[in-house]
């Protein structure tokens, strides 16, 4: 049973208070949207969960194990994976090698045939199989995003954080990412989806977290969040006098 418990995370960079006591919990294969304006701290939160940076205070437990003081690779092995906002594929390694890295890092190396088979299956799913021996640097931006998602599949983590997977992606590839998210979710994994693309968020997520300059200002179903006045104030940047105009059904468009 997947179980991520985050309590009271704070993080400062110098004088900048980026996270101010963020707490939430995830139980089971949930599909959660994490939204908030630019600079709200979404990526920072991801970095802390992932172990890339250490919080100033607060704890993170994954399946009962405390992970906030672990190093990045230990967190990955404990079952939390993430993608990066700016694509970070291993540019001068082939597509296939990119996929092998997480599999071997988890120690599946002794069963190479199985790993290869799985990698091929993932590539096929992501429609990249014809590129398997190309260097990642020769892939298009969108394909590199797919590749990064593919690596996560190979990592087989329990909780996956996708940082803006739709940014800069062509609609036809978007389809694949949708399918990807569904597939992972159906396989019983939890997903935290960070995106500015509201229609995708509303279409996919059953629960939304809204981060506003370090505060978690809302946590609930899309409908409740959508109508939450603090969210509207913070995220839509609405003028007070025109607040009424924004409470229509945004998900429709």
């Amino acid at each position, binding site marked *: 049973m997947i179980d991520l418990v985050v309590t009271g995370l*704070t993080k*400062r960079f*110098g004088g900048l208070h980026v996270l101010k006591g963020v707490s939430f919990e995830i139980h089971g294969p949930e599909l959660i949207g994490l939204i908030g304006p630019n600079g709200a701290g979404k990526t920072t939160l991801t970095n802390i969960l992932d172990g890339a940076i*250490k919080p*100033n*205070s607060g704890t993170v437990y994954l399946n009962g194990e405390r992970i906030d003081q672990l190093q990045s690779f230990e967190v990955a092995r404990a079952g939390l994976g993430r993608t990066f906002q700016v694509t970070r594929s291993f*540019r*001068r390694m082939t597509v296939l090698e990119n996929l092998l890295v997480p599999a071997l890092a988890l120690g599946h190396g002794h069963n190479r045939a199985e790993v290869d088979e799985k990698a091929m299956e993932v590539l096929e799913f992501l429609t990249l199989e014809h590129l398997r021996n190309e260097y990642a640097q020769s892939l298009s931006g969108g394909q590199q995003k797919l590749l990064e998602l593919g690596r996560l599949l190979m990592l087989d983590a329990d909780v996956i954080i996708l940082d803006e997977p739709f940014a800069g992606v062509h609609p036809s590839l978007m389809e694949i990412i949708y399918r990807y998210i569904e597939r992972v979710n159906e396989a019983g994994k939890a997903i935290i989806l960070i995106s500015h693309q509201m229609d995708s968020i509303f279409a996919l997520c059953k629960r939304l977290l809204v981060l506003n300059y370090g505060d978690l200002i809302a946590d609930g179903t899309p409908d409740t969040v959508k109508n939450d006045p603090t969210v509207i104030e913070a995220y839509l940047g609405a003028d007070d006098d025109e607040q009424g105009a924004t409470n229509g059904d945004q998900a429709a468009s």
Partner: protein
Amino acid sequence: MEFPNIFWGVIGWMIFWAVVGSVITRRLYLHKDLDTSNAAFVGSMLGAAMGPIGLAALWLKTPELTNRLLVWPAVGAVTLIAAAFAFADPSNNCVANGSFVASQISNGIILGIIYGFMALGLTLIFSILGIVSFAHGEFYMIGGMVAYFVTTVWFPGIYPIVGILAACLVTFALGAAFERMFLTPMYDGKIERPVEYGILVTFGLAFTLQYFIQATVGANPVKARRFFDFPRLRLPTAEDPWLIKTSRGNMELFDTISISNPRFVAAVACVLVLLALLYFLHRTWTGKALRAVSLDREAAAIAGINPDRMNMLAFALGGMIAALAGSLLVQAFSWLPQVGAIPAMRSFVIVVLGGLGSLPGAFLGGIIVGLVEATGTGCVPDAQKAASYIPAYGMIVLTLTLLLRPTGLFGRRFSGGAHGKF
């Protein structure tokens, strides 16, 4: 050394508390939600200087780590080492002989100024192009060679300044041409690892220049004549006691510190050129444009500054600074094609110590290295080894610094431009 146990005992004690201080202070500051960027440094220095007492105070109060807190414990630690040394080896020249200490310090500073000046060129190149020029020593060598040939071989009796200018001109052109031919591919983003490319290609240049000069000029040491003679002076009066006495090739201060003419001329010229350089960088349009490019390439381009032109200027200027140092020192040192290796090594140590890309860091780093070398040469009891280890003294300081502050002493405050990228 008379009482080595005292010395090594104190050093051991200091190291112990420095390690404890650096590790725990960092943890503590992290835990207390405070800025940790200087915690390791301050903790270790305070531990070294004041032991458990200082650390306890630090840990109880956990004050903000201001510049004062950065400097004073470091000074304290150095003082403590000096004191321990004084107790352990009371008859050492560094302890017992005041005038010796004064001359060593003045030597260290003079040399430090020259080192710092050279390192300045290196750091200028780095801050704008983001590469470490491994050909810096060769520019230094060529500067000296040109000055020598102009003032001594081709036009003996000519004003030395002509030689210096010729050296500047030649190296400037050389630097500009090299930049155009070999460094331009770095800017279009096509090179995967520009830092390494820069190192390697300047390395190739160094190789080529050094052997080219050896093949054409040969390997006999040469030296330019003294550029200027000191006027004969004896101040305040012709009778003792006096403050300054000069002969043609030497100057003596307070009857203790003697500074040789070429070295003095070089240091003064370096300071003057440094001031000119600062003026150039801060007061002239081109200088401001250079700094602007080093801070933010794109914004500079938006303002209409051609960043490629500035790259060329920076590389040529950086090389020229080294050459200038060379042309000033060719009257002090004997010159060979290999002469650049040592100052280049020194410049590397200095720029890393000062923080790559930081101009004040380079200069202060130079003086620190100059002083450390003077201390090492002057104070290490074993005369035979003291000087043999000169190349290592700066490195030891550097290693310690990097362990505590991986960005060097003066990492840039607002990193941007090339410095931010690499």
